[in-house]
């Protein structure tokens, strides 16, 4: 069934990088270009599940989240979107553009001191994207771009773990850790690194070129467990595969 679907399924493209790296701008340009090419394109944004987002928002406002709760709530949000938005769209053939994906959680939560192995397990079974674009900027550039428009928020600035009162100073410390984690992930998971210090136009042209040349990651080789899990349990999934025998 996966072999048959492989030809018609959509591609999953993830845009990753620190705040202020310009990935949302690039994601919008990329999506517009995909549509101009006649493709159906769907966007999924980080922490946007209509079911879970309100829970996270309230808890962020009162600054009541420990790193573990922060991580687990975002993992629940991710799983809900994966099962109800991402996989159904891919299955019907749409290209899904993820404005932040699993690697955001790995980088941020590892920067908060949580064990990397545990984080990977929380997100299992993992649906590996076909392409990951990583928008690389220095901590200084990220900080300058954020500070130009607004003050970083409490968790965005990592104030829950740095203990620094000044949001921007805390942000600079925290984002340096996040970028270090991202750089390791970029090597391990073979991201396509985009130099996000360059002009918007140059970046966009490079993204198009990479996308046109990129090889997809075949589901039967990469994502059997994630797809089987979804097919066995998700209410909107096609019911043609047997339940995975886990127990």
């Amino acid at each position, binding site marked *: 069934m996966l072999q048959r679907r492989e030809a018609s399924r959509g591609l999953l493209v993830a845009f990753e990088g620190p705040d202020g790296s310009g990935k949302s701008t690039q994601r919008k340009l990329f999506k517009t270009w995909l549509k101009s090419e006649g493709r159906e394109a769907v966007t999924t944004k980080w922490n946007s599940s209509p*079911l879970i987002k309100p*829970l996270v928002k309230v808890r962020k406002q009162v600054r009541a989240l420990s790193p573990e709760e922060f991580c687990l709530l975002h993992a629940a949000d991710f799983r809900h979107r994966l099962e109800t938005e991402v996989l159904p769209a891919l299955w019907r053939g749409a290209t899904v553009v993820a404005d932040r994906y699993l690697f955001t959680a790995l980088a941020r939560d590892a920067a908060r001191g949580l064990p990397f192995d545990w984080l990977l397990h929380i997100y299992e079974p993992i649906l590996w994207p076909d392409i990951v674009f990583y928008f690389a900027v220095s901590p200084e550039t990220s900080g300058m771009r954020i500070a130009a428009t607004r003050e970083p928020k409490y968790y965005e600035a990592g104030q829950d773990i740095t203990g620094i009162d000044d949001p921007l100073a805390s942000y600079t410390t925290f984002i340096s850790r996040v970028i270090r984690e991202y750089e390791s992930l970029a090597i391990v998971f073979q991201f396509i690194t985009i130099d996000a210090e360059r002009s918007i136009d140059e970046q966009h042209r490079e993204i198009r070129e990479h996308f046109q040349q990129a090889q997809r990651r075949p589901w039967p080789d990469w994502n059997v467990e994630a797809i089987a899990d979804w097919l066995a*349990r998700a209410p909107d999934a096609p019911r043609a595969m047997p339940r995975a025998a886990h127990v």
Partner: protein
Amino acid sequence: MIAVEGTSGSAVAAAARSLARALHDATGHGGVSAWDASGIFTELAAAEAGIAGPSARTLTLLYAADLAFRVRWHIAPALDAGESVVVAPYIESAKALSIAAGLPRRWLDEVFGFAPKPHVCYRVKEPRRRESSGRQNGYSESFTSALVANGDPTDPAELRARSTEYLNSLEARRRCIRFTPGEVARLTRPQTRRR
């Protein structure tokens, strides 16, 4: 730290209350850390109509988030202060339901890996007749009704049977002790030092 596990919300809550009361009488302290202390599931139940519901895996992650809250605010402070705390339900009840819904045991062990091990684990046997009033008084009931509402293919009767089987296996391996009123007295009896 005394865990009370079971798949009947009302039975688990009743056992936890009696244990906490007895501990309080014997030691002057002893509270209960109950499910949904963080309010996640209460808020989830109030979600707007028309939004796709959570799967078993999403529910498990939310239970773990609620448990992280309980560990931080109830369990760790009590233990640090040298006080007893009754946690009802704890990890095994959630695992029983998730395994019954088809989730892998290895994944569940990893997810709940952050939570400390209880000193004692009691298992509360399910009443012979399940409450048919539709009361949402525990994680088990909430989990089951969420799966049903979400169109999960697992049959609720099968879910109950499999989760009971898992808890039975814990009892058989002495990982949990069957809860009886006599256990309350035994737990709070002053221990005599043997030479």
